[in-house]
Structures are given as structure tokens and as C-alpha cells.
């Protein structure tokens, strides 16, 4: 398919944008990446996602698809044959979707709120929550990977993408707070998985560098301080 037929509106630092980028890479689909600027929303974004006005948005043959995991499933269904992203068994699919929902609704909000925690006590409580979540995810990894290297088995799949897209920010948070949330004692499987994931050919070119995210976090904090309460 011609590159111009597939566009992705996004931003380099967004974990949600990373998800469809990895999916497109898995399927070897060329696409045009349209970077949004912090603080302003392009006319194309507002027209393509009038409901939420958020990135990522995939535009395929002129038609927009919104919500990162909806986009990933769409990519999996449209570009098949190609390595499968969702597992084939309905129960395995349900498990992958369950953990992706957990990540988006519980785990990531706790992690994101660490940055804006009102005091040390609140910050510690959130970090404990993130740490406990990682122990749960270590269990999920054992169950889903069935002894292989990824949640998807031999190949990276839906849950690898859903969770792995948060690794850059997890590492940045660990650096900014001087803590290790993923470690050899509590989450040995995840630690090894994180290395394999971030160096995977479909991932490494879109995986943000920890240092760059730490710098961006400062820019983001300054920007948020200018917003009306």
C-alpha cells in the first residue's frame, strides 16, 4: 500500500502513539508520521477525532480510526496475512484484552500521577501501587508467555505492545525518583522481557530514550503549569 494511504497523527513521547507504530512495524506497513506540537492541536487532528481530540489517530485511505488499542486491533485485522498481533484462541485474546484494560485503567493512571503527587506520602503510596501492579503483571507474564520470551509467546503481541509502550516512561520515572520499580527479586521475568521488547526490531526505532523523556517531563511540567486550573 502506498505510504500516503496510511498516516498516523501522534507525538514521539506518547506511549499511546507508540502502540500503533509498533503494530505497523510488525506488519511492515509504511506510513507517514504527522507529529503534533505540544500545546496546539492541528486542524487535521480536530477533524479526524472530533469526539476526544486526542492522539493517536490512524488515517487509512482517508478514514480515521481512534483509540490506541482499537487502532492496534484494526491494523491486525486489515494487514493479514502478516505476523498476528492478537492470539488466535478466544480465551487467550480475552486475557490479553483484560490485562490491557488493567494497564490503561488502573496501572498507568497511578504511574502518571506520581509526577503530580501532592506530597511525599502520596508519591510513595502511588509508587507502591505501581510496584504491586508490576508483581501482578509478572504473574500475567508467566501465564501468557507459557515459557516463551514475550506475552505473545515467541513473537511480540497485543499485550507486549500495550504494556511495553509504557516502559520508556517507567524507566524515566525510576531515574527521576531514584528508585527501581522493576527489579530482579520481584519481577525477574518482566526485567528480562523489558530488554527483549525494547531491542526488538519492530520496537527499537520508536522506543524513546530515557534521558529524552526525563528532559521532556520538565518541559511538560512547565507547560502544564501555564494551563488554566
Amino acid at each position, binding site marked *: 500500500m502506498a505510504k500516503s494511504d496510511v498516516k498516523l497523527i501522534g507525538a514521539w513521547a506518547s506511549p499511546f502513539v507508540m502502540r500503533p507504530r509498533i503494530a505497523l512495524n510488525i506488519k511492515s506497513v509504511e506510513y507517514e508520521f504527522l507529529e503534533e506540537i505540544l500545546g496546539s492541536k492541528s486542524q487535521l487532528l480536530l477533524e479526524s477525532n472530533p*469526539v476526544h481530540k486526542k492522539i493517536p489517530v490512524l488515517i487509512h485511505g482517508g478514514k480515521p480510526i*481512534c*483509540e490506541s488499542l*482499537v487502532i492496534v486491533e484494526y491494523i491486525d485485522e486489515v494487514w493479514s496475512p502478516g505476523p498476528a498481533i492478537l492470539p488466535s484462541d*478466544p*480465551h487467550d485474546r*480475552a486475557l490479553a*484484552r*483484560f490485562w490491557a484494560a488493567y494497564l490503561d485503567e488502573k496501572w498507568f493512571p497511578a504511574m502518571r500521577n506520581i509526577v503530580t503527587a501532592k506530597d511525599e506520602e502520596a508519591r510513595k503510596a502511588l509508587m507502591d501501587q505501581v510496584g504491586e501492579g508490576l508483581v501482578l503483571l509478572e504473574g500475567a507474564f508467566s501465564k501468557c508467555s507459557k515459557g516463551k520470551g514475550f506475552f505473545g509467546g515467541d513473537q511480540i503481541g497485543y499485550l507486549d505492545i500495550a504494556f511495553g509502550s509504557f516502559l520508556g516512561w517507567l524507566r524515566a520515572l525510576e531515574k527521576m525518583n531514584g528508585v527501581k520499580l522493576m527489579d530482579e527479586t520481584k519481577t525477574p521475568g518482566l526485567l528480562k522481557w523489558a530488554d527483549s521488547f525494547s531491542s526488538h526490531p519492530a520496537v527499537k526505532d520508536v522506543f524513546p530514550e530515557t534521558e529524552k523523556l526525563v528532559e521532556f517531563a520538565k518541559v511538560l511540567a512547565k507547560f502544564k503549569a501555564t494551563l488554566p486550573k
Partner: protein
Amino acid sequence: MAADEQVTLLDTWASSIGMRVRIALAEKGVKYEFIEQDLWSKSGLLLQMNPVHKKIPVLVHNGKPVCESLVIVQYIDEVWKDKAPLLPSDPYQRAQSRFWADFVDKKIYEHGRTIMTTKVEDQEATAKKDFIDTLKLMEGELGDKPYFGGETLGYVDVALLPYCCWFYTYEKILNFSLEADCPKLNAYCKRCLQKESVSKSLEDPKKIYDFALKLRKKLGVE
């Protein structure tokens, strides 16, 4: 369904998200055992089947649990795929269905929870307007189709329909009228309730309101 299939639903009668699963199972003609849960004193079975969230609904199929209402509905659609497909076959249409079901979760379900757990006098000034605006967006998406799924009940319908028996409660708390403010959605609810899979999966709106009042008293907001 094969004779050796065992389908159990852990649920509570008033739950809007539990009703989604009931509608899906009814559409597919799946026989199942409904086990009412006491959420104030959670059963060993619920804690075992959903250790992460300890919440309903949980579908147990041949001993294996599936949790999260929309994950369950997709599972049901994939396992019992030969009857009443809920998701369309075209990938773009499927993506639109998933988007709007997610919208129902983010906007209507979350709004509903806030409305239920807030005192009448503490409701946000914009709560009523925001809720009605959200419902109007759904009306826009429905357009002239009989169902969100087109000519037949689909995934978005399953996500939204339980609210047909909860709207009466929201009307009372927020002081608005669905018939006056969202006539299209009101007509849609009446139309869908004529389907057996919907009417036997939903509860009487007045019973739901009684339940809601008791729950709000228990939570200290009524």
C-alpha cells in the same frame, strides 16, 4: 452449545455492565447459570475467579474465568460465532463499533457512577448538561439506523442498552427528562425493549430506582 459446556455468570441483578453480558448470551441463545453475588460480602468463588478486581461480571466457561464486561462480550461473540454476530465483519466498521463501545464506558458508565455516588446538591453544575450532551452524541451516531449495529443488534447496542433501565434513576437525580431532551434515544430504548433478548436481560426501571435510593442512603449521599 455442546452438552459438556458449562457457562456460569457471576453478576448482580441491578448491574448495568452485568446486563451487557446477559443480552449477549441471550442473543446467542446460550444457556447459563446465573449466580447472584453479594458485593458487600464477596464469595470465595468471585475472589477466586476475579482476584485482580474482585468485581462482577465474571463469565466462567468450562471452569475458566473471563472478566471485564466488554472483554466478556467480545469473547462471547468469538466463541459462539455462528449465531447473531455482534461485531461487523468489515475491519473499519469493527473499529468504529469498538470506539463507540469504549465511548459508552468512558462517558456514560463513568458519568453514571459519579451521578450515583454524589449528593443531589453536590452534583457538578455542568453534570446534567454534560450527561445530555453525551447522550446527544450517541443519538448522532445512531442516526436513522434502527440499531447502532445497523439492521440488527450489535456490540454498541449491547454496551448501551442496560442504561435504558437506569435512565429513570439518572432523570430523577439530575432532574431531566430523556423523552424531552433526547427523544431519539428514548424511542430507541422503547424499540429495543420489544426484543426478548433485551427485555428479559434488563430490570424494571422503578425497581432499579428503589435499589439506587437504598444504595445512595447506604453510601451517605441520599
